[in-house]
């Protein structure tokens, strides 16, 4: 790379030849939160309390205090989030190398399968088939599982609980090991509330995506949206978490650049 490509890129964005796509859900108290058994510690949902609104609490200003957990809304999972990644170097939100926050993305369309089966598990064979059509997943790229789950606007169908728990799609153990061990991915992203499937506590090991991805020092993205606006390959995503000291994750604004020509 000799000539500086950045002016071209900026011009491309201004001329809409490069589109900027927001992959982020709006942070609102109405967006559902991960649901854990009630005896466990709980991750806070997003909450907003007014400081003042041009009133006796502050005539000139409108502003809010907000509170939430690190894993609220569209959020980033750092390796330290899981027990398998707890002793790795640069494993928390303040130490993740910034170079890893800009990376290409492969979007794997699972929509038809998920329409048939909310518990759909993305397999290694499914990924190999995808590669036959779109090429090999490049190292250090994100694999984003497109399910259109983000189009489920009401919290009840988004969470999709019954008496046996949550029913949402995710990768199976072989798929995760394939991505980590054979493709060296940057991370795995999902439109659902977790990178793992809703019933993943029954897989072996439980929560394989968390276990293997974070165990390899790689990252997770959850509650993504607008994946249907991305091409299968060729986009670049920006995933900078808040710089929380020893943070296990963080809500973040995920942006993608897409070349439209």
């Amino acid at each position, binding site marked *: 790379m000799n000539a500086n490509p950045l002016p071209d890129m900026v011009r491309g964005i201004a001329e809409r030849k490069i589109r900027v796509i927001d992959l982020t859900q709006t942070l609102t*108290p109405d967006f559902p939160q991960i649901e854990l058994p009630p005896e466990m510690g709980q991750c806070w949902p997003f909450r907003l309390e007014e400081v003042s609104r041009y009133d006796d609490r502050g005539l000139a200003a409108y502003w809010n205090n907000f509170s939430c957990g690190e894993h609220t809304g569209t959020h980033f999972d750092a390796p330290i989030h899981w027990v398998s990644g707890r002793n790795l170097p640069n494993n928390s939100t303040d130490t993740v190398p910034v170079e890893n926050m800009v990376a290409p993305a492969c979007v794997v369309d699972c929509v038809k399968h998920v329409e048939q089966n909310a518990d759909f598990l993305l397999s290694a064979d499914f990924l190999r088939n995808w590669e036959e059509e779109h090429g090999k997943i490049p190292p250090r790229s994100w694999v984003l599982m497109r399910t259109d789950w983000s189009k489920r606007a009401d919290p009840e169908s988004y969470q999709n609980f019954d008496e046996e728990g949550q029913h949402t799609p995710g990768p199976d153990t072989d798929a995760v090991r394939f991505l980590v061990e054979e493709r060296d991915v940057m991370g795995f992203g999902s439109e659902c509330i977790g990178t793992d499937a809703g019933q993943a506590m029954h897989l072996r090991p439980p929560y394989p995506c968390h276990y293997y991805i974070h165990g390899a020092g790689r990252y997770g993205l959850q509650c993504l949206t607008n994946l249907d606006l991305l091409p299968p390959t060729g986009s670049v995503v920006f995933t900078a978490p808040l710089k929380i000291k020893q943070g296990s994750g963080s809500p973040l604004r995920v942006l993608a650049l897409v070349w439209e020509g």
Partner: protein
Amino acid sequence: MATPLKKPKRKNPVLRTRAPMLPPAPRSRISLGLTSGAARGVFELQVCRDCGAVQYPPREACRVCLSDRLDWTPRSGAGELVAHTTLRHAMENYFRERLPWRLGIVKLDSGQASGGPPGQSESGTPSLIVHVHGDCAEPPCRVRVRAMLDRAGQAVLLALPEKDTPHMSDDPQMRELTCNPKFRKVFVTDGKNPVGQAVVRAMVAAGSDLVWVGEAAPWKKIPGFEEIKALPEVTVVDLDVTNPDSVKRCAGQIGPKVDILVNTAEQHRAYTVGGRYGTENARAEMEINYFGLLRLAQEFGPVMMSRGADTETNAVAWVNILSIFALANKPDQSTFSASKAAAHSLAQAMRAGMHKTGVRVINLYPGPLDVEWNQELRPPKVTPAALARAIVAALQGGAEDVYPGDIAKDWYERWRRDPKVLERELAQGE
């Protein structure tokens, strides 16, 4: 016999909603003893420890022997209505708007012989000035006197017929001195826990016109909720008391249509101070049990207070389910007790404000409930259905502080006697 109350017609929307008027509220410090009993649903009079005289009205010293050793003591209230009159003109706006109003004099059965000072009959038996229920016969006749709280939250005495009569609670005076859910619209803030569900069923059984039921986290499948939703009187509304926006939306949606609010939203865990590291759980308890109540009070309080005199089905009551552990901390439910103590304190302030418009704040202080988080406690435990019955009884009966269940009653008595002794007993792991 009281005329059975018919379902009131809908409000004429072109007429002004009348401002709530109150009966005269000031009482002397001594007279508040009568209010203290009425608040618990008990009729108490001063009894002289030295000469045994029963005294009414309350005073600083015994009118017979001048002793100041006077004890508030429960009385049966049995007596005879010796005179009555019907008020047809009043200078007090509250009564002016409610005429005619029946008043009378009751001579109580119990009492001690004395010289018969003013206010005591010849035998020393106190004579009482009372409101008279419409079903009491012409004097002389046998009656039961009860101490009730009026709309200002102060004690008044009401003579009831000796035996219950049909539709007794529909008498206008009874309706005025109680918060009967019959034909009223009730809001149960959380229908997804066993207590909320029991309250919904009890309100429907008590004749509520409509029961709004709050639902947080709609994705959670909770046993019994579908059955509650299916009741014809029930309408489910979104409400998460931890979310200010949700509380505001809910109040905007249904606030003017709530006559009785029962706050059943609760977070309950059982941990000692060191039993749960960190404050996440304690915050969740405060977030729901204390801040949740504060948010509800700020959003629903003003609109309910504006409707204290809104036709026959006005806003009348706000019910808080606190805990006997609000008065003295149960160390193995330490942070829960603390959150309920905070709610208890806030509820006192709410009461001071809401009394001014005739809306009664009713606080329940149950002992351990028979719910999931008390699984490891031995009986006796108050079932959700029993708690719901106690709420309805308080609304129909007129108490504002309720101690349902044996443990609550025992603790309350011990707390009144000596809070320090109770604290130490609880610390010993009673």
